[in-house]
């Protein structure tokens, strides 16, 4: 199940450990991560088990005869993007979910923040349980929501603040997205619908770009990491009202 008590940083370290040393045992993971008295060995650690379970549910690692391995070993995607891609695929049913709640992981992000164009929610637990889909699945505990906000913060989707969650895609995350983009320039519509969509939700219920995404993209434009232009004759959709940009070009990669 994805809604495990995990933080995020340990997920990346364990994933990379398995990726770099394909076919890694649980013992190897414990040995490489757990602090212990000199000369002793570690046989069990719940935090490691939770992390392994999460990665398995995300279909990022697999287990075969007590050994963990990853597929797409040669994939150059960063852990963050790979995780997001998996989570989005689970949400959209492209990959089967291990647990009925797993499809809610990025659904929560989309429904609570992006579609409503809402930057901050002071009580995510309450807001999440107000969603019909979650009610039908029996609800999410506060611990699960806390774990979700921690992972979201680690990924760079926002910040845990004032007891709630402030959704603002970090420039680092968007730079990773841009870095991995094989194109250099395209219409914004194409960039959002055919590429960003793979990793992150971006569109509010009006069809516009959510503030959580727009603010950071404009910030990157100010730092000359991308250029947004009007592309007047293009029939594609315009974003960033009132600028009405239609095109994006990445810079400095």
């Amino acid at each position, binding site marked *: 199940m994805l809604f495990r008590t995990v933080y*995020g940083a340990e997920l990346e370290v364990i994933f990379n450990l398995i990726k770099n040393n394909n076919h890694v045992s649980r013992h190897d993971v414990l040995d490489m991560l757990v602090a212990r008295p000199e000369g002793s060995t570690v046989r069990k650690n719940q935090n490691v088990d939770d992390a392994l379970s999460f990665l398995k549910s995300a279909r990022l690692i697999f287990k075969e005869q007590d050994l963990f391995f990853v597929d797409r070993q040669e994939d150059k995607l960063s852990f963050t993007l790979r995780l997001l891609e998996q989570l989005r695929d689970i949400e959209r049913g492209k990959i089967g979910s291990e647990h009925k709640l797993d499809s809610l992981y990025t659904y929560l992000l989309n429904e609570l923040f992006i579609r409503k164009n809402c930057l901050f929610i002071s009580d995510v637990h309450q807001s999440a349980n107000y969603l019909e889909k979650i009610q039908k699945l029996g609800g999410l505990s506060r611990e699960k929501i806390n774990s979700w906000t921690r992972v979201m913060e680690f990924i760079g989707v926002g910040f845990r603040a004032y007891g709630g969650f*402030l959704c603002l895609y970090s420039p680092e995350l968007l730079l990773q997205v841009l870095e991995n983009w094989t194109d250099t320039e395209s219409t914004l519509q194409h960039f959002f619908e055919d590429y960003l969509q793979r990793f992150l939700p971006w569109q509010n219920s009006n069809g516009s770009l959510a503030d959580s995404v*727009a603010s950071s993209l404009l910030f990157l434009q100010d730092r000359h990491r991308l250029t947004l232009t009007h592309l007047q004759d293009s029939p594609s959709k315009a974003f960033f009202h009132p600028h009405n940009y239609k095109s994006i070009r990445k810079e400095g990669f």
Partner: protein
Amino acid sequence: MKLPCFSEAGLKIFSTTAAQRYKLGKDIFLDTHYPIKLRSFNINGAVDVYKEGDLLESLLDTQGIQRGNRLTLLYGAAGSGKSELMAWLDIKLQNLTDRPLLRVARTELNILSIIEQLQHWLTGDFFDETTHSRWQAMRQKPRTFSKLLVLKALEQMIDSDSMINALYYRLLDVVEPHITRVLELNERDYLELIPRETFEELREETALPVDINFEQFRKRLLDEFRKQLLENTDIPTTLQKISENLSSKGKRPILLIDDLVQSINIFATDFLDYFITLDRGEWDVVIGLTPASFETDKRHRELLQRITHLDTIDDRVSKLWLSDQLGEVSYFLSEDNCNEFAYGYLQAFRKMNNLNCENCSALKKCRFLSSENKIILAPFNEATLKRIFRNLPNYKGKVRYFLKYLHDILRDLIRGESIATAFSRYLSPTIAVEADNSALQDVATWYAPIMDNSGEINLDSRLLSFFDLPSDKSTVHIQPLTRNISLSSQYENSDPVLHPSREAISKWLEKEEINRQLLNDLRQGVSGWLRGVYPVEYFHRAGTSKPKSVIRYKRMEMNSSPPIKIQDIDSFDGIKLHRKIGHMAFSFDDLARASRDDARELCYLLSQQAENATLILEGYQYRNAYWKQLEHLISTNLDDFALGVFIITCIANGKPNRLPPGISSEIWMQVDYLYQQILIRTQRRQLFDKRTAKVGFDLFDDFYRLRKNLYDGPKIKEKCEIYDVDYIFELINQIDIEIVDESYKASNLSLSAYILKLKTVISLCEEIKIQSEWKISDDTSQETETILHQLKLGNSVTISEINPAVLEEIRELTPDLHKQIIVRLQLQSLSLNVKGDIETQE
């Protein structure tokens, strides 16, 4: 704005004194007169409210009253309406009674006229021409007249020629300016022949054995004054005789004195003395008193005391107040009725400009600016008038200044000024407005409904029509400037007062000049909110649980940390706050002063605003910049630095109970060896105190700990495969602590002081390592051999006392050891420099 009734001719009606309006005609005066209410304060603290009609009735009612004077004292600050009430009483009494009536207005009658009028009542005659001529003559020679008065007074009081002579010149110089002013007759300030303070100062300064009583001296001056210029009229006697005379005819005279001090100046006490001797006459007297005007000299303060302590239990004396003592509160003009008050004047203004609203082409338009009870207030509306009222200066009469502002604003509008110019010239806006265009913004600023809380409103389409603005764009965002916005009720009952910092924000948003100190709350609000969202000042790995945030960049500018750099105001480096945040600035300002509960609500509110996302991203940029700067200054990345600090801390104080994964056994062996050697040299004392050791372990956790008991072993291992202890020593040793900005901290220590502690450990370790390698040759001097022997045994040697020749011999014998000794000497010198810093911070 242009209305048919706009003409400057009608502005006369807004005269700031009742006397000026009275001169325009009784009808106009009565048309514009607003009923006055007064308050009396009982000895038990209860407050009674009187109407002006009650006062009029009591003056008219002479049936069954006790013998003696009846005295009504009207208190009020300057401009609070005393003369207005007196003028109204004057008109009403003239119409309603044939009793002898004299009104001594503040500006109309001088002392000569008053005394002459009283004399006329008594004798039927006026002063003869020679009396008037004498005033004129004395005005030409005030010094001669002063000499006459002073000499006469002294002559009556002192027996010695020499003493009179000596005092005469001293007193003359003091008295003359006062007498000159009294002779002018048009002087309206408080006048005295000689102030008591001046007299007493003079008496203290002189070496002469003066034994003159001030009151006696003043009385002699005044007696002589009356004798010379007022046909020796004695006021109490005259008043008494008038009273007796009229009483015999069954008539009771009425005297209205607008202002005791200003109207009858030097004779104020004579009048008062008479009237408060209640049994001596049959006068009905109303006297206006301005408490502040009694503050000018000691004698008048005593007079005020006497009045204040007059026994009001007796129904022949009543004290009524039109305003509080300072003029902050009018007892009849308030925010709630100022529109009705203004309406009377606006109607008279239109009438004086020969315009009747009913026949006016602009009637339809002006009705858009009607009050709830349909009175046309154009070119103002209810909200505008309330805003004017809220802007009236403190400690001045509300009535006078309300009229003055109406006059001035109306005059400017008539002259074609825009509403923005006309209003802002006299008033400070009480709200800040965000609107689509400046015309809408101006209308909203002065005409929008009064709101106590911020929010979005749609302006009334009728209001927009009056200003020919389209009604489809009526939405504006309003932010009150008048008080701290509080989500709790703590401010609900407080008076709306302009808050300096909110005013400053409003001006900043409008690009006006401001005092940057007034924006400190704004800076603190922004920095406080930002710290709650993003670790702007702390450097640690992302996504770990409970970072200790050991390394931080803590710089304070204008009381805020991280520094908030306000657009076009601040020049220091900091997180940029742009004007485009608009009214959100007010919420940040509120946050700086908010209570805990309010602060939480405000933080929720601020976190929901997309405009503030920019601040977080600015914070991100700021953090990255100073992170990179630090790595540049210490010439290593913080990951490596943290690992180095951890290893050195283990050498200084021993390994932690649980060892993080990934550190090679070779490194642990070196750590163990050095730790043991140190224990031998320090006689089993650890090099770091507990706090310093904790800083080292916490810093390591900030960069390598993933969760409780879980570390980034692969990364540690990767580094330890490349590094050994020597490399780590070199990594720390190469840091030039003098270039590390003092704003960088390691927990509560300055980072440079902390690195110095690390270097001390390294220095000791290197000594240990070198000593295990050198050998003494046969040529070595005895002194050098002794020192080297001591060092090898691990005994302490005072390095600064080593002979230079011995040092040179050590250099030749073992260059590495020499190098270590030099480093130790340098460290000792540096430690002197940073010692103060460490003590301060610890």
